[in-house]
């Protein structure tokens, strides 16, 4: 990372490591969120993406590594010293039913961050009303309890609570995964509008690639606690360089039968290996149809190239490399890849 990037990033994470006992959830991850951008963090369950979100918000403490918020290292700060920084980073969780206190009224839920930051009561209610309006809810909702609201409304309340302190970074951890498509659409529209109008940066953690393609500016693809690839949305979706990104994209079906049935799909063998004893070398080598000897022993560095970075031995410095979707016949090379059509 250059010195310039360090000073301008809303959030910068360097060599972040988080082990839960023997489980290597995050293992040397670096990323940067620039002001006003939507950075999507994608990966399958077990990739460590939610842990990264929790580390950035400092809900949990890193085993090692640096988390800089607005240039200040908060990774090792005491809880007390951390307080002023809590206003600048907020989080929205997947399940609004379990992240809202059922005994509190909506108004108090949304006001709570302000109360904790010592904002006087008189100033709170005006701000609460303002932010509830921003998330498209009527002022009367402040008197209601979470159980009186629908799933979509509850998620709006979670977003209001996250935005009430005017954060510079919003971490949204699977904010729409528990919602039906039609409701999901309204929450994604809302996040897009708010992000554009209020200008905060957003770390959007998700496994939903369609949502990523819809709203992300840049994308970080994680695999087993590490970054596989980083790139602009256009690059990731049109010219993914890492074999894992290529396989992941090919596996996500598009809701258009004519297009979907013409797509080349790569079915990866097996599932995510254990985080307790992650594979040596490139962590993806056990499932990668292109893996060579070097991949099994040497850890690939995350190399910067045009429009992004990639951690793969097979990708050249100019960003060119093989595509698992172009492999000849499926069953042949290693039984690792099965292809249709």
């Amino acid at each position, binding site marked *: 990372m250059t010195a310039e990037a360090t000073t301008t990033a809303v959030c910068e994470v360097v060599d972040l490591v988080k082990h839960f006992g023997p489980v290597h959830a995050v293992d040397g991850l670096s990323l940067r969120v620039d002001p006003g951008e939507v950075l999507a963090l994608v990966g*399958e369950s077990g990739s460590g993406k939610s842990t990264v979100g929790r580390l950035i918000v400092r809900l949990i403490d890193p085993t090692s590594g640096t988390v800089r918020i607005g240039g200040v290292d908060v990774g090792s700060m005491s809880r007390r010293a951390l307080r002023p920084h809590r206003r600048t980073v907020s989080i929205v969780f997947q399940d609004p039913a379990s992240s809202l206190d059922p005994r509190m009224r909506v108004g108090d839920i949304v006001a709570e961050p302000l109360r904790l930051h010592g904002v006087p009561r008189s100033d709170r209610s005006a701000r609460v009303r303002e932010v509830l309006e921003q998330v498209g809810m009527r002022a009367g909702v402040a008197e209601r309890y979470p159980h009186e609201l629908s799933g979509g409304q509850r998620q709006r309340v979670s977003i209001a609570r996250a935005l009430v302190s005017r954060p510079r970074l919003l971490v949204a951890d699977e904010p729409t995964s528990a919602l039906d498509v039609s409701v999901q*659409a309204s929450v994604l529209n809302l996040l897009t509008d708010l992000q554009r109008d209020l200008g905060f940066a957003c770390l959007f953690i998700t496994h939903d690639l369609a949502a990523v393609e819809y709203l992300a500016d840049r994308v970080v693809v994680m695999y087993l606690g590490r970054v596989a690839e980083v790139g602009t949305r256009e690059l990731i979706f049109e010219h993914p360089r890492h074999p894992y990104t290529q396989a*992941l994209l090919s596996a996500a*079906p598009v809701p258009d*039968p004519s297009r979907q049935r013409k797509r080349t799909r790569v079915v990866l063998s097996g599932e995510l290996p254990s985080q307790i004893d992650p594979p040596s070398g490139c962590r993806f080598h056990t499932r990668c149809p292109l893996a060579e000897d070097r991949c099994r022993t040497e850890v690939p560095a995350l190399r910067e190239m045009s429009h992004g970075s990639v951690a793969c031995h097979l990708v050249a410095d100019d960003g060119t490399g093989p595509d698992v979707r172009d492999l000849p016949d499926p069953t042949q090379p290693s039984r690792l890849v099965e292809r249709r059509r």
Partner: protein
Amino acid sequence: MTITTTDVDPWHPGSGSPLLKVRDLSVDFRTEDGHVCAVDQVSLEARAGELLAVVGESGCGKSVMAMALSGLLPRNATVTGSVQLAGQELVGASKAELQRVRGSRIAYVFQEPMTSLNPVFTVGRQVAEVLRVHEGMDRRHALDRAAELLDLVGIANPRERLRQYPHQLSGGLRQRVMIAMAVAGNPEVLVADEPTTALDVTVQAGILDVLRDLRDRLGAAVVLITHDLGVVADIADRVLVMYAGRVVERGEIHELFARPRHHYTVGLLGAVPTARIDEDERRLREIPGLVPVLESPEDRCTFAERCPAADETCRTRQPPLERAPQSSHQVACWHPAGTGGKETA
């Protein structure tokens, strides 16, 4: 409901009469808060070698409908109508009859493979149990056949897997085991209720391949219940869209996705995020409001309060499910959408 041209599947022209024939299936639940009409006069057919997708959001009645097919609902449910499995009537059938049918003629795969397997028995014992009960096999033969079944659903080293306990398997493997158990009795109809919803996309792709394979190789009629339109686009031959307990639209997959006629279907397809083309189009279609919970069947279009095209007729008379103008599929709407057709890109 009469069988119209839509019932002839252009993609499987040789297929014969439907294996599963459901007519006017309704489910009413008695609850402490009164009645809930969960399924209202649903009719459908599923043919051998065909995959029928039932689509809708939570609360639309798709899972209840699937469970009602073979009497899996609790006692407070009243099921009326007709479910014929190759001529045998299942609604009102005795417990013993239903038990014989389940597993051997109609089998289920559910969303949660974690909770559907018994944690204290090995995989082998559980798969073999199905074979011993339904096929009357002895232990040795059942285990041999179990290994074949695991192989059929794409599990490597099946012998080794049979000796393992469910907690030793990943989510995708457990779901494959569940499918193996479901097909153990050679059922004619396989009902898969959100089988990939709890799984990652790379794992989902493999499970969908297994379902495709069962349809093609075993010639099973597969009824796939899902909310995921990407999955439907990938694998379905025909689609049935449910809303508030009713079928609002049904037809052949390409036709229905290319020219959805019901405003709910249009809304669902528009709500799925896709790549934005430019900044001005950075909006997804929202469907305002919520799925209503009905106490009894109502003589109106139940989507009317959320529908952009609704008028007085919609609020006072239930639209019949009939062939849409200029289209080969059926829709229950007084004012079907898009005479000019909807873009598919």
